[in-house]
């Protein structure tokens, strides 16, 4: 196996409790690193039949969690399997990106109560904020936090803001929000600290659908002003 750019040599494997390992491949929101994480996750999934004891892998932005059953697979064996999966996928070509999924959004007003504030903090007009947010094709880096919540990136630099100082106790379902270099969609009403700039009726999460989440890691997404 090759190790382009020394990426494999830089991987840290950390213990997570007594029955999981976390491979940390980087500290950034980076499409290449994230694509590697998902390729390695696929590799682990494919290999699970032959590696009893490894459980379903969970990708992060630049990390991969692999739970294992210490009664059937030693920690050393799990570590070796994880490193092998990362090694096999370090330089394989990225999966082909499909057509972007279009998400219609009603920006501003009651649907995006923070739009004016985001405009003020970034020194842009509301129309500029909408144009910048809707003018970018995003990648689904991961799905997590709550069922179906897509973490999308990379948000244009001029829209990057820290999270709100005080999180809202209830963010309405379908809210389209930004924080840092990320944008996301709240699939259900939950607490949340991101800036709400719009809202969509797209069915982001439906527990009666298979799969229940509309967006999967690696999907491309474009927001379309409704």
């Amino acid at each position: 196996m090759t190790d382009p750019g020394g990426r494999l040599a830089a991987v840290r494997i950390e213990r997570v409790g007594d029955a999981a390992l976390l491979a940390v491949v980087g500290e950034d929101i980076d499409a290449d690193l994230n694509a590697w994480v998902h390729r390695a996750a696929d590799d682990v999934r494919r290999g699970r039949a032959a590696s009893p004891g490894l459980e379903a892998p969970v990708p992060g932005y630049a990390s991969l969690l692999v739970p294992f059953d210490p009664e059937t697979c030693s920690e050393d064996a799990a570590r070796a399997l994880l490193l092998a999966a990362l090694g096999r996928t370090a330089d394989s070509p990225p999966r082909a990106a499909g057509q972007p999924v279009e998400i219609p959004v009603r920006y501003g007003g009651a649907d995006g109560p923070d739009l004016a504030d985001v405009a003020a903090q970034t020194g842009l007009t509301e129309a500029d904020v909408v144009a910048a947010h809707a003018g970018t094709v995003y990648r689904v880096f991961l799905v997590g936090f709550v069922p179906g919540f897509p973490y999308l990136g990379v948000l244009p630099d001029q829209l990057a803001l820290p999270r709100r100082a005080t999180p809202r106790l209830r963010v309405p379902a379908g809210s389209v929000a930004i924080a840092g270099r990320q944008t996301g969609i709240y699939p259900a009403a939950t607490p949340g600290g991101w800036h709400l700039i719009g809202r969509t009726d797209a069915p982001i999460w439906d527990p009666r659908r298979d799969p229940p989440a509309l967006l999967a890691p690696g999907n491309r997404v474009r927001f379309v002003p409704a």
Partner: protein
Amino acid sequence: MLEVVDPGLLMTLQDAGRPGFADLGIPPSGACDGWGLAVAHLLADAPPDGVAIEVTLGGGELLVAETCAVSLAGADLGAEREDGSPLRPGATHRLLAGSRIRFGGSTRGARAYLGLAGGIAAAKVLGSAATHVQGGLGGLDGRALRAGDRLVPVRRGDLAMAGRAWPAGIAPHPAAVEGPIRFVPGPDLASVPAGTLEELLAAAWRVAAACDRMGIRLQGPRLPAGAEIVSHPLVPGAIQLPADGQPVVIMVDGPTVGGYPVIGVVPRAELPRLGQLRPGDDIRLAPQEAEEARAAWREQRSRFARAAEALHADAVWHRLADGAGG
């Protein structure tokens, strides 16, 4: 058959959980105290992947619509018949049609598990009937139990299970143990200032009011907070350190990824103790080697297997004795 008269603070249907879907943001859910759930199933002679009622902190009431045998395990939440006679946890009881069970509340432990001989019917979603309220998954229509809900057995239950009890001489519950809750340090110790771990160990922590199936907030001295990190996956038992320096322990319905440093993870054998914490409890935390944690898990499993064998042997003996008598 049972009918919910009053769910009290919270009653949900739970099983051993829905692992394997965290990549969709779906947490494992299931019983907060897996040991309590397993004991409830064992005592009711229900399958290990079956469904039980998780009763939270008490205050609930059930109506017995049809004579049945129910087991109680986990915390003693003051369960009693309508005449006030107590229904002991760690045992199976015969309940007559038309009678009621009330959960009066308790001073120790947070969750009781009520198992039904014959099992409780609930549709599986993604391989599990565990209720995850935030995601609308499992249980009855993806929600907590409410007044009027009827719980139907999977099959006719064996009333002879009444009288079954956890064998004397086998340690009853991991939460009966005193002493600090153990955690395996890491994975993000490099992202917190030096000395944070030592301060975590030295302090006494009080369980805050924000203590539920998603997470447990701890109150104590303000720890030096780490920087936010690029979000990585979380597991139940993860001890996160947010910016306010007050740790949050992730529970079975909690977020599947997070951007705060995780300074330690409570291992499998200690999770039932977390599931029995209640607001106002005072706890301490202590580090544990991963190998020691795995040994504790194996010990717990073998203890459970010994109890199961003892009860099975009892059941065989009773059947033989009944046969001889008939």
